[in-house]
């Protein structure tokens, strides 16, 4: 349910003029709820930013999320997959 909760809060922030990006753990929820900007991560529940005590990976995820703010051609809903460093796109 967290995936929906962050999305609904994000939508309200956007309505008030604050740009948002949410991390999402389940694609099917992101597609149903439609948060404005979402980074879909390949991690299990409880581990949205990768691994505990792995600051480098956590920063990579956050940096990927922040890049969504700088996509000048983006339109909502923007759903982008995070690929861990070293993993080639399919």
């Amino acid at each position, binding site marked *: 349910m967290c995936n929906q909760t962050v999305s609904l809060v994000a939508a309200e922030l956007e309505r008030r003029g604050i*740009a948002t990006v949410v991390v999402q753990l389940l694609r099917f929820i992101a597609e149903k709820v439609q948060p404005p900007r979402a980074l879909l991560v390949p991690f299990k*529940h409880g581990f949205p930013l990768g691994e505990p005590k792995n600051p480098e990976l956590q920063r990579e995820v956050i940096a990927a999320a922040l890049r969504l703010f700088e996509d000048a051609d983006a*339109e909502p809903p923007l759903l982008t997959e995070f690929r861990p460093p070293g993993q080639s796109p399919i």
Partner: protein
Amino acid sequence: MADLSELSLPLRLFLKAYPWRRIDPIPWVIPDKPVSQSRLALVTTAGFSAPGQAPFDEGFKGGDYSFRIIPDGIDLGALEEHHRSEAFDHRGLAADPNLVFPRDRVHELEAAGKIGSINHRHLSFMGSITAPGRLRSETAPEAAKLFKEDQVDLALLVPV
């Protein structure tokens, strides 16, 4: 991504039958300055509360829709977690609160010039809310008002 197969069968069935709230129309803010010049705030749904704050009510029917203000300068070890879901392993966030509330990580990115500034306060909700009516009508608008007062430009929201 997280897989439905890691969840119990009753939970999988619940999620498949649940009436998800679709955001329509989708609000959209185009930032008017780069991230490197913007003020960022965090929102987590980990159910964190700071010392002296009432914990989230894990027995609240439909899910506790309140939020807690988390000062940016807080000792992360002082945060208490009261997330009612048993669908995830809580040991990760117990070992490292940055996993779900990346306060240190965004400050590192700020120091590296990637983020303009970090807001002096952030928010924690408790994400297991199956009845989000009052979240949408009361507490999410309150959260937005608070961040607007702080002149927050961007928000990063992290579920668990």
